């Protein structure tokens, strides 16, 4: 059974889908009943995290003040470049969804959202929050979908730096930064933002914030260069948006 269900095969998916669908109403009732208890627990044991988060957000707000002017300039440049290339870029359609369930055990790195194939959600689509990309849809059923978080080691996303260089971001596990691999030895500094590249054959659109570079270690004594990025998306968000863009065939 394990061999049958190794990642990428999925012949047991229909069985899972049927049983999970039958169990969904029970989970929905349980979620409604136990949510207040859960909030109490988070309040009691998540206070330190909230303080850290608050400090981080204050820092980001300060940076954003300075970034606004830069963003305005980039938008103006971007608009001119698009006119030059005669490109017609439409806004991506998105579907709002609520996170209905977090991981069930310690070893899971997925979320479940209340939007599925009936709402146009498909496997591989990007899931974003106000802060940036949160992950991608790993499985979609009728009215729900499973989202694999950006921090999961099996998620790899094409990224681009502010200088336009392309690379790959890969998760290293929950609570750890993403690891960036770049094709060239590009000059980068801590605090720089990286965005989705949007050029690979996936459903992930370009120019969505991925994270901020938190550590750059230069290659030395045979050790490779290490670039770490802290995701800008709040991985604990309760509301998300699925970008309804399918991978080009």
């Amino acid at each position, binding site marked *: 059974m394990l061999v049958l269900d190794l990642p990428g095969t999925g012949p047991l998916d229909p069985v899972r889908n049927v049983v999970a669908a039958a*169990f969904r109403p029970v989970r929905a009732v*349980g979620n409604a009943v136990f949510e207040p208890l859960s909030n109490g627990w988070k309040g009691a044991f998540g206070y330190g995290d909230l303080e850290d988060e608050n400090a981080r957000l204050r820092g980001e707000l300060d940076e954003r003040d300075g970034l606004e002017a830069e963003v305005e300039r980039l938008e103006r440049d971007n608009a001119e470049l698009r006119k030059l290339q005669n490109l017609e870029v439409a806004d991506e359609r998105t579907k709002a969804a609520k996170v209905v369930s977090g991981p069930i*055990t310690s070893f899971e790195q997925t979320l479940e959202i209340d939007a599925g194939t009936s709402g146009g959600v498909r496997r591989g689509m990007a899931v974003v929050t106000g802060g940036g990309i949160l992950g991608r849809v790993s499985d979609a059923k009728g009215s729900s979908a499973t989202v694999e978080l950006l921090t999961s*080691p099996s998620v790899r996303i094409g990224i681009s730096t502010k200088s336009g260089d392309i690379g790959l971001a890969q998760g290293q596990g929950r609570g*750890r930064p993403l690891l960036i691999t770049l094709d060239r030895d590009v000059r980068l500094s801590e605090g720089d933002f990286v965005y989705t590249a949007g050029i690979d054959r996936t459903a992930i659109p370009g120019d969505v914030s991925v994270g901020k570079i938190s550590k750059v270690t230069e290659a030395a004594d045979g050790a490779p260069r290490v670039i770490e990025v802290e995701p800008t998306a709040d991985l604990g968000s309760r509301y998300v948006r699925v970008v309804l863009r399918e991978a080009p065939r």
Partner: protein
Amino acid sequence: MSPGRIAAVVLGALVLQATLLSRFSYEGARPDVMILLAVVAGYLAGPERGAIVGFAAGMSLDVLLSTPMGLSALVYTVVGYGTGTVTAGAVRNSRWIPVVVAAVGSGLAMILYALAGTVLGEPTLDGPSLVAIVVYVAAVNAVLAPLAVKALGWAITPDRERHRPFVLR
């Protein structure tokens, strides 16, 4: 052993795990009441029945997880069987013994799960600290052990056994 009662206990534990216990995360670790069923069944009823209950608990949990189907079932079956074998000659006249067995068995089971997942290419060692998972799951399951003993005692022991004087069993 009554299959209907075992199914009721496993289903009840699954609902509890998916809707309530999974919310109480600490440092990323979450309780795992399904492994408690495997451990306690092994302790109460021996290796074979421990393996059966472990398989049922693991398989029902697998349906709700995004990990390969059968991973939990495999690990929980081994843990149920192992607990039954290791505790076969244990003294059972103290109410603390099942608590200790639940804590130690659950902790070891989390290590086994992480290793089995890694062998199958799952990122089970890339999430929260394994030490945090082992300690948290062991502690929660130690607290819940008396409840699991009662529930599985009801499911595993036949009625006529339960009503017979202890010396005649």
